[in-house]
């Protein structure tokens, strides 16, 4: 944590994007996390992604649960409304918010304790409902804020800072997300911003339930040897399956690639995800094959990163509910209330 406030003055030459915002407009309050915490890098990546996509910051709603990770929405997009809800229950709050106004961009931030332990049920159900959002788990394998207990994503056999071994099977959120029906699933690493920023951009441009499992080492409690979520360990075992470029409709598409080495996925909003393959036999479209690949790699000890599954065509929750295109929160008595004549008929039918 740096407690000296950033200078308030804007650099006159800070570049402005089409909405007139500079990069600073995407920032938030000063972080109070530990210096070097992986979570801060994710906040920076979110800022970068939103800036590059030129989103109007106030059209984003940031929601989270409880934990160090869940504190981070205060540290980016200061002009967006935020909601630090209760432990493990961000998904339901986000679902409700999304129902009320389908026109905002929903960004859910959570931790591995928040999502894989107390919140596992809500995690599962928001994905299977296809809520249009980006759901990021800042995954450090421990409970940071309560001082370093194992979380459910800690690998079996990994050791705590005090040397205690974890015996329970670990929960692999990426596998669950694909199994449960998430339509954009990726894994990133807070230590690799160049990979992470496009993953977030891709998630934002996706319509439907987008999930990113972002390994994010906890400097204070889970960065020792014996941990499988520390910087060194993750760097060593990181196996990226592809590299993502996100091209919005107005980007010019220039680069030329050898046939087969690139997969292009057109998203609902016209954005194109261009995946440069690193692993030849990985196909993000084929859910079954992707899961198989992930399982094999996991068994071999690799941490697979990149875009892991995309289905750009699935309906989102509003589609399946058939809600009107205007946000529900914009409707007034005129649109909603059947009025006196209807009630008279209603009464008549009940005599």
């Amino acid at each position, binding site marked *: 944590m740096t407690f000296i406030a950033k200078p308030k003055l804007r650099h006159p030459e800070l570049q402005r994007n089409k909405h007139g915002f500079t990069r600073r407009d995407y920032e938030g309050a000063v972080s109070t996390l530990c210096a070097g915490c992986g979570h801060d890098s994710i906040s920076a990546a979110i800022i970068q992604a939103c800036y590059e996509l030129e989103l109007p910051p106030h059209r984003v*709603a940031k929601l989270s649960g409880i934990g160090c990770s869940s504190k981070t929405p205060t540290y980016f997009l200061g002009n967006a409304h935020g909601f630090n809800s209760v432990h493990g229950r961000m*998904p339901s709050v986000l679902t409700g918010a999304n129902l009320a106004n389908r026109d905002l961009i929903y960004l859910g931030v959570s931790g591995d304790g928040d999502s894989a332990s107390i919140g596992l049920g809500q995690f599962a159900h928001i994905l299977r409902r296809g809520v249009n959002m980006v759901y990021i788990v800042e995954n450090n394998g421990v409970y940071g804020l309560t001082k370093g207990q194992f979380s459910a994503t800690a690998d079996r056999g990994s050791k705590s800072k005090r040397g205690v071994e974890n015996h329970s099977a670990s929960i692999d959120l990426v596998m669950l997300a694909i199994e449960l029906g998430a339509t954009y699933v990726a894994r990133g690493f807070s230590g690799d911003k160049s990979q992470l920023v496009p993953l977030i951009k891709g998630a934002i441009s996706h319509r439907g339930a987008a999930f990113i499992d972002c390994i994010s080492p906890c400097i204070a409690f889970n960065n020792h040897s014996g941990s499988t979520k520390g910087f060194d360990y993750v760097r060593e075992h990181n196996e990226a399956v592809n590299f993502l470029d996100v091209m919005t409709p107005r980007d010019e598409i220039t680069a030329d690639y050898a046939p087969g080495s690139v997969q292009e996925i057109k998203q609902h909003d016209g954005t194109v995800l261009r995946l440069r393959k690193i692993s030849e036999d990985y196909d993000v479209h084929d859910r079954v094959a992707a899961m198989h690949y992930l399982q094999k790699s996991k068994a071999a000890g690799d941490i697979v990163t990149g875009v892991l599954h995309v289905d750009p065509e699935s309906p989102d929750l509003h589609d399946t509910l*058939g809600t009107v295109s205007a946000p529900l929160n914009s409707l007034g008595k005129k649109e909603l209330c059947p009025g006196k004549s209807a009630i008279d008929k209603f009464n008549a039918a009940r005599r």
Partner: protein
Amino acid sequence: MPERKINNFVIKFANVNGSGSASANKLFARSILRMGVPVSARNIFPSNIQGLPTWYEVRVSEKGHLGSRGGVDIMVAMNAQSWNQDQLDIESGGYLIYDSSRPVPASKFRTDITVIGIPITDICNREFKDPRQRQLFRNMVYLGALSSLLAIDIAEVERLIQEQFSSKEALVSPNVQALHFGMDYAAEHFDCPIGFRVKRSSSVGSKIFIDGNSAAALGCVYGGATVAAWYPITPSSSLAESYEKFCKTYRHDHDTGRNSFASIQAEDELASIGMVIGASWNGARAFTCTSGPGISLMQEFIGLAYFAEIPAVIFDVQRGGPSTGMPTRTQQSDILSCAYASHGDTKQILLIPSDPKECFDFGYQAFDFAEKFQTPVFVMSDLDIGMNDHLTDPLEWNDEITYDRGKILSKESLDELAQFGRYLDVDGDGVPYRTLPGTHPSKGAFFTRGTSRDRYAKYSESGVDYQDNMQRLQRKFEQLRTQLPAAIIEEGKTKASIGVIYYGSTEPAMKEALQYLEEDGVSLDSMRIRAFPFGDEVSEFIDSYDRVFLVEQNRDAQMKSLLVSECNVDPNRITSILHYNGSPITARFIRSEITQSLDALKPSRKRKSISQKS
């Protein structure tokens, strides 16, 4: 024949659940209503889908006494499992109507009642081929027999059948046929009508016959609720299901095929209240409905909504507790767990309807209160009101009514504002201003949280900030209590020195009891509480009497606890009348308890748990 048997009796149908008797029984009740005679009907059903005993009790009351009466005058005993007990329940001089297809030895019948056997199964087997029809039409046969026996106008029944099957025309004539088989058999074999009977009247007036859950659901539609999130639980599921049904009528655009509502069956109650909070935070009117176990599961989230000041509407259709308790029985036992829901210092708004009409009214008003005061609002219904059809005043709506969205700042007002502070008490009423996500590019954004914070919604661990906020919340509740539905006070015929307080579904039984007590020479003034926190009229009422009774449908006198601690009332001045066996309270019970108590009660200072009556 004594006049008191006309339009004044209780008939009970003992059936097997899952056998299709429900709709025939409802036809019975409605046909009497169509003759202008008030009825109340109560379904007593097991927590089971098929095969266990279920009862439908209809009270016919020219005088409009619509509470449960207790006792049975006519038992239609269609269930062998409960036969023995059913026969025992008949009051002396009453009637037993049964299916005589299988001979029952005379020794099996009570001698102080009249036994009427209709060979229902035989008739059906003779007249119908299809096994399902043979089964289903048994209900129509006894309905037909009853019209003869009780002098119900068969034309009314036929009309109702026609209305009911308007979309399945082919079903009308076999149903009517079955009806006539029963009617004719009874007319031929018995002296019709019997002692108890129905006589056309005009006492129903403009009243309608509806269950509280439907009425509450319509209230949600009228109140502009666009988001419903719920989890199935008896006795509240039908509220959510009715909301969806009504929305398909009133909120579905047939041209575009689009809906101006969203109803989500959540994965549990924690998720449903979470969705309601998320939607309300984002400016939609949203509600959930549940019962006791759901209320327990929602506690953490309710505390968040109280503390972060987010509107939320929660219908608690109360059932018998604690725990899973008696899921298909009625009680008023969630008062404390709602009023003080969640850990820490909290206080919640309760609205307590007494009938379907008020379920509708409080149903739509709840959204105004929730948004105006930015806090959860509970509508405390119960199984008796919610799941039974009641004769109630017609629902009323006035097109002048507008939605009070409370203090929400628009983009324009934000533009004009020098500085926005989410938790500033600008107006001195404890109610701060809020903004909705996405409203303004640079002003009004804030962070909502369940932790302590300053007036600008910034995280703060300062005791001063915390206390400042907690005191503002206290001020908010202090001022809002006078804006909630006031208690309704009614005076007895003669100047009374005794008052009686009651609430919710106790109303019909209470009103009837008051009338009896008046006849016994005991005049009481009464007050029906309709909301918590209490308005001033509540403590004023208590102050005005030497002795006050408080009638509740729970064991622990929960409303009394609320009253004594919130109104600084001496608990010794209040005598509890407690009914909590799961069946609706009756006028008989209240009358007898009050009478006994007046005979015996002296002001004393005994422990509550001893002095309470049950």
